[in-house]
């Protein structure tokens, strides 16, 4: 029922998205409409949906592994790690194909996620707010390294594309990698129970015969692939992975087999809504979806921090 209603809402929004843009479809000539939808509007709509769904799921899984409600890939170093990977690919292999960029981005994203978990597992569990703080600093440090490196090779303007996510450049032929991110998110549903059990801690996981390290690694790979792919194709979009899982947790709890479909739908809806809003507020110009979510998400983040400390565990 809940899923049905949210899917219907999402479909209506997605259809609306096909009609929002500089060219008014009702005024356009018939011959123009199909290529416009095929090459721009449809890819853009699908890209927002895939990005939102997979980032929200990646956030949910990262929070479960970290056993902390306030972490997400884009603010805890994974996204910055991905940006570093793309920059390295572009600098070391000039003219690197997208697939190589993506591979390196996912690889460095995985390294920086492993670094994040190595750092935070030593933190006292009685201080749950330390984990996101360390994450923010850690992500900030990697982000600074990316900026410094980009400055050295005179690519500051290029990294802006990855550091601030937006969808105006999504055209046919330039967004398809995101289907892989969607696939990674979909696959995570197959091991939803395993991820839920991780959230109960290492001892309970071991007791239930779960291969703890293997599942943690699987989760981190999934998070890193999603981060790498989204940063390469649309750039970093913060807060989706933070806000959406927190909201869904309140509505549907954390049994991921039940929660993940809702998380995916809500994430897709949030990013699509942000992109729609960005296309409308200063029409015919655009505001990046990453900026819109940055504003909305930061407000929600503060609300989560101060409004409900008990959620931190």
């Amino acid at each position, binding site marked *: 029922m809940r899923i049905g209603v949210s899917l219907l809402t999402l479909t209506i929004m997605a259809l609306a998205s096909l009609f929002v843009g500089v060219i008014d479809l009702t005024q356009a000539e018939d011959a123009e409409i199909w290529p416009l939808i095929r090459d721009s509007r449809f890819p853009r709509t699908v890209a927002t949906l895939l990005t939102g769904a997979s980032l929200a799921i990646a956030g949910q899984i990262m929070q*479960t592994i970290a*056993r*902390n*409600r306030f972490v997400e890939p884009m603010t805890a170093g994974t996204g910055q790690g991905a940006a570093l990977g793309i920059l390295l690919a572009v600098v070391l292999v000039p003219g690197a194909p997208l697939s190589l960029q993506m591979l390196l981005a996912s690889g460095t994203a995985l390294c920086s996620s492993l670094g994040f978990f190595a750092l935070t597992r030593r933190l006292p*569990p009685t201080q*749950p707010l330390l984990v996101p703080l360390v994450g923010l600093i850690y992500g900030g440090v990697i982000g600074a390294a990316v900026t410094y490196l980009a400055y050295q090779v005179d690519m500051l303007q290029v990294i802006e594309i990855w550091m601030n996510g937006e969808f105006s450049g999504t055209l046919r032929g330039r967004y398809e990698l995101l289907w892989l991110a969607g696939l990674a998110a979909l696959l995570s549903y*197959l*091991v*939803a*129970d*395993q991820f*839920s*059990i991780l*959230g*109960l*801690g290492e*001892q*309970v996981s*071991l*007791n*239930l*015969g*779960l*291969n703890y390290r293997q599942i943690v690694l699987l989760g981190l790979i999934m998070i890193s692939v999603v981060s790498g792919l989204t940063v390469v194709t649309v750039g970093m979009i913060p807060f989706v992975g933070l806000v959406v899982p927190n909201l869904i*947790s*309140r509505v549907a*709890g*954390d*049994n991921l*087999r039940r929660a993940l479909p809702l998380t995916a739908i809500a994430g897709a809806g949030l990013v699509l809504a942000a992109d729609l809003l960005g296309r409308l507020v200063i029409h015919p110009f655009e505001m990046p979806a990453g900026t819109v979510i940055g504003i909305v998400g930061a407000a929600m983040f503060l609300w989560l921090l101060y409004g409900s400390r*008990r959620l931190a*565990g």
Partner: protein
Amino acid sequence: MIDIEGVSYRIGGQDILRDVSLQMGPGGVIALVGPNGAGKSTLLSLIARLNALQSGRITVNGLPVGQVADDRLARELAILPQDLTVTIRLTVRDLVGFGRYPYHKGRPSEADDALVTQALGNFDLQDLADRVLETLSGGQRQRAFVAMAYAQDTAYLLLDEPLNNLDIAASRALMARLRALAIEKGRTVVIVLHDINYAAAYADRIIALKGGMVIADGAPKQIVTEGLLRDVFETDAKVFRVDDRSVVLV
């Protein structure tokens, strides 16, 4: 049978267990008692492979702990750890349902669901089944975790200080249920207890540890004496016989 052979364990240069050899089960309620730091919890965590063995050997029904696959052992032995903090929002039914994970690996069958419902009933959790764990009291949450271990349907059940958060009624009810498990289903329940009186009342066998060594081992009637309390706990307390049972006057 749980067979422990020459197990020693050190943490940071300090001996926690010294050459412990024991055989437990099959069947019965076995209480591990001893002062704080005696090594009871460590012994339990080694049997349940929560910590890796440093020396010696432990087998559970012939399966060597540390070598046998985790999921195989999970169908033989369940442990209720001491630390039961839950940071995720799960309902009681979800939690108890995860007890079936070693069997269904994420695809629960109707038989699994039936066993979960039965576990909920056995531990009086029907009314709480759809409540989120964090809204429960400490004792109720504990009961939910015990029900999860029960749903795991293993021959061996290890519990580390399960009476910690429980009032007297809940403590007695839990101990009676564990006792019934041992008698009716032939399960082996190994339980770390602080209160000797509970051990004396409900256990078939008491194993007293001190300084990482087994100091006494036997039926409650024989070993709960003033001398044992002096040797193990270094305290002078009187022990009386009431209804053919040893009772420590605290």
